């Protein structure tokens, strides 16, 4: 049993309880936050001059499953960029933008994070994803199920069969032990099977004669009907193309939903020559749409790996950057692609992309509705979060980078004119309280909450970008469920995280439909379900 802990005299940021920068003691007993401690055998952490927050929550990070693993296999040259040997009873690992499982957990814990959402689980790869979850220590995890291009669902939508549609989704969520619904380029990856794509909400998916609009409307309705804790998590159509903000503006009519990596969908112009940012327009519209949340998808310059279920986009990208390309088809369910990518400061387009991410975060007024991500590893590996925090908190720090960028970053975006600097409270919302609340999970220091806490060696008044980045890169302490797992930026204890999943009610009898559909699958329906033995620390959430 762990000793009880007192965190003394820290400057506490706990947005869910409205606590912002108060000097306060925190008491931990039996893995929970308590009001008082009784015993005398207590470990005291002196947090004087330090910042105390709930631990970090990543709302969108590709860290496990078939496509991530393919990325690892596909990029041995990424593997040798970081080699970590096994020390102090920890495991070894390699990889920079697609790190192996164990070190992924360690690196998150070092930054004070204890939860990450794997946002793209192809149903057939769910078993693999859970196996990797089990090998990713330190963090709690959950997976969102890719359903925007599932043939069975699209057929129900084409027929207008709403009852069976939501039952099928419930059956899939239960079978895969996942947490919610993700749609990636709805209809587009399915169209890719015919060598095509859909770029606007009204383009028809070949053969099925269904539009992205119908798919999105139906998936939003199912999320509400099944009372899922997280709304539809969507990667919009027409991602990554100049002028795609028009598709985005049209898609903002739907709600509630969480739009991910907004940066990739906020571009103006109609070619790479007149490519520019439309982030301000998008952000203004989001400011008015209260049931929509977004995450940034912030670019950080360097070599990374793009991977998405948006298979036609990856083909397009590989023809632009002439690097290697992996394409995958997951039977009747979805597809995907992987292409390495190098974001360069001197590239005009990359410089604009870098600025767009920050514009999104700074133009959206309410931090509860914009979360910090890099769409790891698509726009950058997650290890750069501390740098993004520093860019958001210090205008000077981001202007230093802006000066190094191609002039388009200043000329074709509004970033240079933005003087907003986020406070530590706003950062605490964007990196923990906000994403946790949107996922329907807890990330607070309330009495009775799980004691998962990050302590950073940072003066709350600090304004120097470099010092902010350093403090958030290497937590003074990370506490997971009452265990001190990181001290002074070093992992001191390996712990196994939990896996959250949602159990839904299947209302219709799907026996006949399952029999018919599984004629086209390579596995039997009996072998399709991921058993609970794959979730040693599974946390079932039952919806009513």
């Amino acid at each position, binding site marked *: 049993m762990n000793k009880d802990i007192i965190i003394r005299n820290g400057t506490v940021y706990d947005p869910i309880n409205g606590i912002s920068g108060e000097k306060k003691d925190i008491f931990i007993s039996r893995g929970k936050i308590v009001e008082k401690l009784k015993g005398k055998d207590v470990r005291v952490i002196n947090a004087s001059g330090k910042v105390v927050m709930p631990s970090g929550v990543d709302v969108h990070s590709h860290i496990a499953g078939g496509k991530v693993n393919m990325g690892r296999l596909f990029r041995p040259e990424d593997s*040798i960029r970081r080699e970590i040997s096994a020390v102090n009873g920890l495991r070894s690992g390699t990889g920079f933008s697609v790190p192996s499982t164990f070190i992924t957990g360690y690196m998150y814990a070092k930054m004070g994070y204890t939860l990450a959402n794997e946002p793209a689980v192809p149903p057939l790869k769910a078993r693999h994803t859970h196996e990797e979850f089990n090998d990713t220590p330190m963090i709690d995890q959950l997976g969102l199920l890719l359903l925007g291009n599932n043939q069975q669902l699209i057929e129900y939508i084409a027929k207008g069969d709403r009852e069976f549609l939501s039952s099928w989704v419930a059956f899939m969520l239960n079978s895969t032990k996942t947490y919610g619904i993700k749609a990636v380029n709805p209809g587009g990856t399915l169209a890719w099977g015919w060598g095509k794509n859909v770029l606007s909400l009204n383009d028809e998916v070949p053969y099925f004669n269904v539009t992205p609009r119908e798919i999105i409307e139906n998936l939003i309705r199912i999320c509400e009907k099944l009372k899922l804790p997280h709304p539809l998590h969507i990667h919009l159509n027409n991602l990554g193309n100049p002028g795609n903000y028009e598709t985005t503006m049209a898609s903002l009519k739907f709600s509630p939903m969480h739009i991910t990596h907004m940066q990739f969908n906020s571009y103006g112009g109609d070619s790479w020559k007149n490519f520019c940012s439309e982030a301000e327009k998008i952000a203004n519209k989001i400011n008015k749409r209260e049931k929509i949340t977004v995450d940034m998808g912030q670019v950080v310059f360097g070599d990374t790996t793009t991977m998405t279920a948006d298979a036609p986009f990856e083909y397009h990208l590989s023809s632009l950057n*002439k690097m*290697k390309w992996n394409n995958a088809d997951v039977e009747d369910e979805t597809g995907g692609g992987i292409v390495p990518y190098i974001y360069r400061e001197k590239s005009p387009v990359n410089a604009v992309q870098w600025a767009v991410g920050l514009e999104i975060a700074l133009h959206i007024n309410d931090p509860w509705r914009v979360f910090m991500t890099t769409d790891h590893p698509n726009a950058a590996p997650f290890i750069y979060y501390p740098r993004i925090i520093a860019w958001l908190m210090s205008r000077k720090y981001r202007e230093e980078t802006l000066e190094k960028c191609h002039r388009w970053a200043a000329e074709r975006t509004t970033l240079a004119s933005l003087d907003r600097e986020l406070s530590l409270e706003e950062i605490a919302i964007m990196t923990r309280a906000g994403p946790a609340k949107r996922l329907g999970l807890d990330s607070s220091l309330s009495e009775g909450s799980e004691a998962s806490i990050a302590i950073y060696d940072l003066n709350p008044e600090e304004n120097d970008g470099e010092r902010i980045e350093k403090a958030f890169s290497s937590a003074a302490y990370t506490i997971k469920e009452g265990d001190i797992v990181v001290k002074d930026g070093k992992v001191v204890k390996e712990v196994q995280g939990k896996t959250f999943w949602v159990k839904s009610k299947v209302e219709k009898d799907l026996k006949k439909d399952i029999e018919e559909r599984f004629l086209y699958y390579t596995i039997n329906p009996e072998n399709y379900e991921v058993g609970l033995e794959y979730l040693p620390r599974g946390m079932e959430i039952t919806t009513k």
Partner: protein
Amino acid sequence: MKEIILKVKEIPEIGMEAENISPDIFAGENLEGIENLRVYVGSRKERLKKFFGVEGKKAEKPEDLKIVIKGNVSRVKRIGQGMSAGEILIKGDAGMHLGSRMKGGKITTEGNVGSWTGMEMSGGKITIEGNAGNFVGSAYRGNYKGMNGGEILIQGDAGSNIGACMTNGKITIKGNADQFVGVRMQGGLILLEGNVDSRAGAEMMKGIIVIEGSVKEMLPSFMEKGEVEKIKANGEEIKGKFTEYMGDLAEGGDGRVYVKS
């Protein structure tokens, strides 16, 4: 120039990773320090002295140091990896990854070398008096940029995929070479004095391959441009009658392969 002599005692069959055998690492170390440098045998850490006798004089800077290896080190990998100055002379065969990511200095082997010699090197010179394996001067597995500076000279024959993804520098092969010379090449010069198997320059985008012997067959994605009397490449001039090919057109490439007419 000071010399350090490494005499081979016995090299285990499993092979050894010895990136610490490099003037950059030896510089400033006395003999005892060198004897205690770490090598890997499989996953086991061992000391250099277990496998090599060490003699000679200490040098403070790598550029003042010459390492002479006496004996067969064909099972020793990564000798001279990342070295920036100084010299290594191997009086025998050498293993894989000799001088990979080397930045400067000189390596000479009197025998044969394994694959990946001079991988991603950016400067310096490697001379191989015997034959070479595959992927000499290439990119690391999966990487897109190979050798981008310096020079490799192979007196004997070479294996396949020589200069894969090469972006700059020069490779000279006096003997024959196997398939895929200069695959995905993006710059630099490969000069072959002997004969070449098929698929030379596959997927090349830029750069020059000169074949003074015969070529088994050219890829159909190369276009014959006619005959030239001399070739200008890497600041030098090569004289003689050559047929000029442009490609690889499958990649929209603008590379050149010259084959002696």
